[in-house]
């Protein structure tokens, strides 16, 4: 690449330096900006979707396709362009090398390539709004519909390719980094939980993404080259795409969930000045357990899809067993609070909100793990509300919490003010007001992806309420983002370790670390841990 990436970073803002950077921290910030851009546009879609559903009949759309395109963009962008890059792009890039005492990642230029691919994907995704025949295949893209539709399936496929390739490169890079570039003396049991969760997420990405990439590529061939891979009339298997898709996309939930929980652990351990409760159980039972089990549970997305009966029952058992590793993680989270010395700030308030969200989201997953329950609940707004509690709220709130928590590290300033707290309150109230009504009407049978629910006029009041909630959240999010931008430039100057954390990114690196991250080489001894608060 250019020499700019190799020279030291100058004091003033230099756009060229940012664009051609190979510095993991700048790449992390660029990931954050890109994923927040995707979040804002996809969030706007969510508002439009809620506006359309607020009352019976067409409100803002001229036909169903408009609505379907909004759903497509909201789903695909939120998961593929916001949550995954926000957690494994932004948070992992910026903080993982700092946490393990590395000067950068193993392959900085490949890291930059990942970022570029991600930005291309964002641009491609945004082009959705200007092309004719916009893609309308949901983020799942099931054939035969995705093959027979007028919509432009190729856009979907290429976006998945770019993001998938970006993620695979990222996964390779970070796994090599963690294996080979830990500070001398740092053993596997001394890593931050966030590092462990990120490693787990990248292992999942590495193994499963190529399967999704293969599946969508064959979809492309079917639609544009006239092959019959998924065409049941000509020897294709109509169910295979769904299996391949969820073979990746259920593990993708853990690609999001694990780093999200990792951030929660960092914040809760730091703010309660406590060691992670039963660290080894969380790491080897919780995180590794999820990685092991994640490839055997995808059929719970296909409980009503016509899979063989024995497979549906077998995977009901494996799906329910996910509660064991998740339960161990939850116990460790809760245990970390026990006899802590808890100080509160906006990052901690977000973390507390997440404790509630993880309970609601996790526990409503239990009926959905059960095949017989899902025969009714499948594809209702109950499912919709359940995974929004996990993805749309828990994971999203951890990204926000992470930004608040590491704001001093990234900008040298604090963002913890009254506006931050007001926006948190609005966000929290808004999402609950939006999604609790959807739980209720979901059990009554409100189908997902319906703009028109004239067959269920009794659900209209619930949709009214849900839409009000969406607007409350929108105000909260807007305030929050404006506050971030303001505080990044004008916020109160922070100490190097404002939370008095023991984690390496706070103790060894200055705020806004320069190239090379650490003023001096980091070496740790065997008694060091990132959670070593109570030296008895």
């Amino acid at each position: 690449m250019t020499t700019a990436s190799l020279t030291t970073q100058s004091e003033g803002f230099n756009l060229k330096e940012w664009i051609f950077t190979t510095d993991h921290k700048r790449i992390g910030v660029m990931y954050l900006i890109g994923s927040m851009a995707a979040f804002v546009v996809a969030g706007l879609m969510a508002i439009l979707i809620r506006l359309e559903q607020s009352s019976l009949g067409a409100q803002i759309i001229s036909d169903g396709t408009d609505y379907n395109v909004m759903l497509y963009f909201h789903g695909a962008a939120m998961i593929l362009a916001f949550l995954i890059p926000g957690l494994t792009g932004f948070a992992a890039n910026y903080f993982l090398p700092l946490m393990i005492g590395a000067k950068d990642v193993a392959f900085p230029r490949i890291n930059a390539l990942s970022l570029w691919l991600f930005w291309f994907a964002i641009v491609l995704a945004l082009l959705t709004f200007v092309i004719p025949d916009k893609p309308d295949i949901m983020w799942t893209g099931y054939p035969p519909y995705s093959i027979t539709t007028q919509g432009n399936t190729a856009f979907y496929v290429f976006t998945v390719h770019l993001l998938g390739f970006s993620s695979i490169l990222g996964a390779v890079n970070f796994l090599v980094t963690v294996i080979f570039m830990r500070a001398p003396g740092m053993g596997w049991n001394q890593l931050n939980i966030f590092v462990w969760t990120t490693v787990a997420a990248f292992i999942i990405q590495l193994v499963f993404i190529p399967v999704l990439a293969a599946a969508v590529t064959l979809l492309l061939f079917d639609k544009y080259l006239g092959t019959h891979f998924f065409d049941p009339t000509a020897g294709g298997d109509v169910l295979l795409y769904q299996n391949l898709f969820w073979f990746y996309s259920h593990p993708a939930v853990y690609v999001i969930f694990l780093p999200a929980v990792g951030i929660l652990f960092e914040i809760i351990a730091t703010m309660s000045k406590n060691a992670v409760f039963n660290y080894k159980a969380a790491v080897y039972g919780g995180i590794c357990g999820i990685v092991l089990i994640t490839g055997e549970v995808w059929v719970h997305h296909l409980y009503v899809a016509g899979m063989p009966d024995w497979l549906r029952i077998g995977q009901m058992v494996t799906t329910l067993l996910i509660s064991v590793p998740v339960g161990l993680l939850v116990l460790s989270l809760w245990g970390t609070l026990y006899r802590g010395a808890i100080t509160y700030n906006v990052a901690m308030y977000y973390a507390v909100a997440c404790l509630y969200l993880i309970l609601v989201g996790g526990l409503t997953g239990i009926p959905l793990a059960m095949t017989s329950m899902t025969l009714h609940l499948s594809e209702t707004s109950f499912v919709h509300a359940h995974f929004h509690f996990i993805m749309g709220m828990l994971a999203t709130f951890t990204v926000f919490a992470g930004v608040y928590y590491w704001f001093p590290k990234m900008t040298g300033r604090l963002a913890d003010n009254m506006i931050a707290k007001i926006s948190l309150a609005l966000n929290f109230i808004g999402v609950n007001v939006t999604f609790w009504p959807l739980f209720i009407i979901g059990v009554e049978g409100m189908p997902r992806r319906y703009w028109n629910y004239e067959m269920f006029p009794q659900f209209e009041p619930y949709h009214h309420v849900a839409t009000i909630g969406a607007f409350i959240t929108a105000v909260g999010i807007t305030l929050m983002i404006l506050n971030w931008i303001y505080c990044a430039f004008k916020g109160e100057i922070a100490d190097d370790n404002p939370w008095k954390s023991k984690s390496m990114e706070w103790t060894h690196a200055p705020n806004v670390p320069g190239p090379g991250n650490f003023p001096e080489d980091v070496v740790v001894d065997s008694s060091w841990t990132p959670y070593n608060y109570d030296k008895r």
Partner: protein
Amino acid sequence: MKRMSSVVAGITSLVAPLAANAQDGVIQDPAEGWDNLWYEMLVDITVIGVVFMIAAIYMLIRYRTKDPDAVGRGPKLTKAQAIAWVLIPASIFMADDFFLSAKGWSLWNIQRGVPDNALEIKVTGYQWYWEFEYENGVILEELIVPIGQPVVLRMTGEDVIHSFGLPEYRIKEDVMPGRVTYLWFYPKEAKETVVTCTEFCGVAHSEMYTRVAAIDPMEYEALMAKEVAEM
């Protein structure tokens, strides 16, 4: 895999007596079974949720401090304690999992075990309407069934994947080209309800619904006679 199979085999033997539907001539209604299990589920997850929530709230209040230099005094676990803190909760979670699996499986056997005397209706899903073909050749675009007799739907699709969702009867199953799927339900009382398409199928996905009427057998016979005469 081996462990899983033995676990599965164990559960099979657990629920085997419940497996066959209508064994003693009594037809078990899957919708009723669903409602009952749902109720038990709600109790189960509410109890877990409330216990954890109370624990969290208690600790968040009890251990708060204003002193920024205070440190937490969390317990340092011995090896035995650490292992116990894995095994005991894991076995509790697993016990609940297997309990729920067994419960879910016995309901599943009812949901999938079609009674022998079921009325068979062929369903075809099109973009974007349903077609119902009765055994006497009558074709309707709404589902009309007599009360008091189980109904089994043998379903296939003509174009893309749809899903036949009957919220009132707590059941649904996908409908797709090239494969035949089935579901059954038990209309016990006269009522009008609706079937909706619950798998995204295109521009008019949310308009792909139709009336489902469970009517008196006499009325049903009369209607069928009229339809046959018109054929």
